[in-house]
């Protein structure tokens, strides 16, 4: 079970983030979550949006390169070591985590987005272990 993540290439220039967000807002896109991975001269903005395909098209027209990737949105219980257990399961299966970030979605537990180099296998493992994952339907 995956959710679609929209990532946008951002030059490290004044007003870029602002322009991306305004472009999406003007296109009627509702953002559910946002995270920015930054380096010295560029950043990758990762977004969960209510309509990622439409958002991608809008950004393309505005000259922002973006892409859509599947990420796994897990919800871990609010208890010590619960996320460590999830990571351990992934690690033990020999799968690398590319990145993670917290999601700002209301509900019980802590929602976290995970991108790995074998998402299908991770979903299978987490399903087997009864870890709760957010579906695209739940997201919107």
């Amino acid at each position, binding site marked *: 079970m995956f959710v679609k993540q929209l990532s946008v290439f951002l030059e490290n220039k004044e007003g870029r983030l602002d322009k991306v967000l305004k472009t999406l807002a003007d296109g009627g896109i509702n953002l559910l979550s946002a995270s920015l991975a930054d*380096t010295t001269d560029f950043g990758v903005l990762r977004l969960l949006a209510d309509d990622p395909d439409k958002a991608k098209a809008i950004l393309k027209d505005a000259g922002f*390169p973006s892409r859509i990737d599947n990420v796994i949105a897990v919800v871990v219980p609010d208890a010590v070591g619960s996320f460590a257990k999830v990571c351990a399961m992934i690690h033990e299966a020999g799968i690398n985590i590319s*990145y993670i970030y917290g999601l700002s979605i209301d509900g019980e537990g802590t929602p976290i987005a995970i991108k790995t180099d074998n998402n299908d296998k991770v979903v299978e493992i987490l399903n087997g272990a009864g870890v709760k994952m957010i579906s695209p339907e739940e997201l919107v």
Partner: protein
Amino acid sequence: MIWNEAKECMSRDEIEALQSARLVKVVNRVYHNVEYYRKKMQEVGLEPGDIKGIEDLDKLPYTTYADLRDTYPFGLAAVPRSELVRVHASSGTTGKPKVAVYTRRDIDIWAECVARCLAMAGITRDDIIQVGYGYGLFTGGLGAHYGAEYLGALVLPMSTGNTKKLIDMMIDCDVTAIACTPSYLLHVAEDLEKAGLVDKIKLKTAICGAEPWTDEMRDQMESRLHIKAHDIYGLTEMMGPGVACDCEHHKGLHIWEDHFLPEIIDPSTLKQLPKGSDGELVITNLTKEGMPLIRYRTKDLTSIEYDKCECGRTMARIQRFKGRSDDMLIIKGVNVFPSQVEAALLTIDGTTPHYMLVVDRVGNSDTLEVQVEVAEDTFTDEVKSLETLKKTIHDKLKMAIGLNAKVTLVAPNGLEHFDGKSKHVTDKRKLYQ
């Protein structure tokens, strides 16, 4: 001091008679010994006998970088391979470098030309000189070295890359002269100032070249290091450094007209222009044996003054360079063509040919930033792969142009495009006044 007064102070009539005689000889040599030149001349219906003197110069076809590329590496050699003793090279527009080959006599003449320049700058056999140009295929190191030895000075072949050692030995060995690029000398000045060592040096003369520089840079060098600085000009295709140099009056660069025949042409109509006109400098090798070039288009824009100089020399003076008629950049003394960058980028998956070179001078050192557009279809969500792309671009550029460029990834269409043809260079240095 005038090294070779008999040549450097000839009357205009004597210069022109000597040039005419040598031009006839060199045209005969290339016609009979270089198939490429023979064909070029035949194509325009020229025979060696049609060239009777310098007044016939404009009948001869030009030589350009394209000719060097087509004949790479030794196709323009005018003597048998066994007569050649040296190869030098500098960057070409794409791929292959521009190669020059020399006979033993060429090396000797080159040494004398450089010695004349050093003497013009006041350097004598009593001087101790550091050569701070790179030694290798680049003509700077070995060219300056042989000239300084020919003059009889004591030479420290420092090469490049170790400023601390250069400064230590400058002080320990009582070095009185230095040959290096002007930007490097300013870098040395800065390090000397930082270390509080300016009053420990005995340096009195600098002979700087391999890149264009300004009067303001000369003023800085002279006032900060308490020296006299001279400008030496040359290009690998003709010989290397020592084609021309400026004397203490700084009224232009005296070109050694007994070996190099200069003319000014209009780069758009390709017509020879009257003396004193502004245009592109074209030079013919009069004495080179290994690879004499006929009417080589230097792409440097300037004019030439022919009146006798206050220093006593009659050799014509190349005036301040006003730019180039091609898009070549000189960055840290290295010739860089935007097309080299383009060719390197095209070999990398994940970048479009849209790029921008931003050249600047920070402090006294040239900087090169290469901005590259990330392709829409190859942009990834992972920072790691974008960083890898940056590193790949950096490494490919280093291989292609020999410089460490700062690579910046930009969004597609993040660069200005003009009528389908991108502007590829922003040079903030203002080297040409």
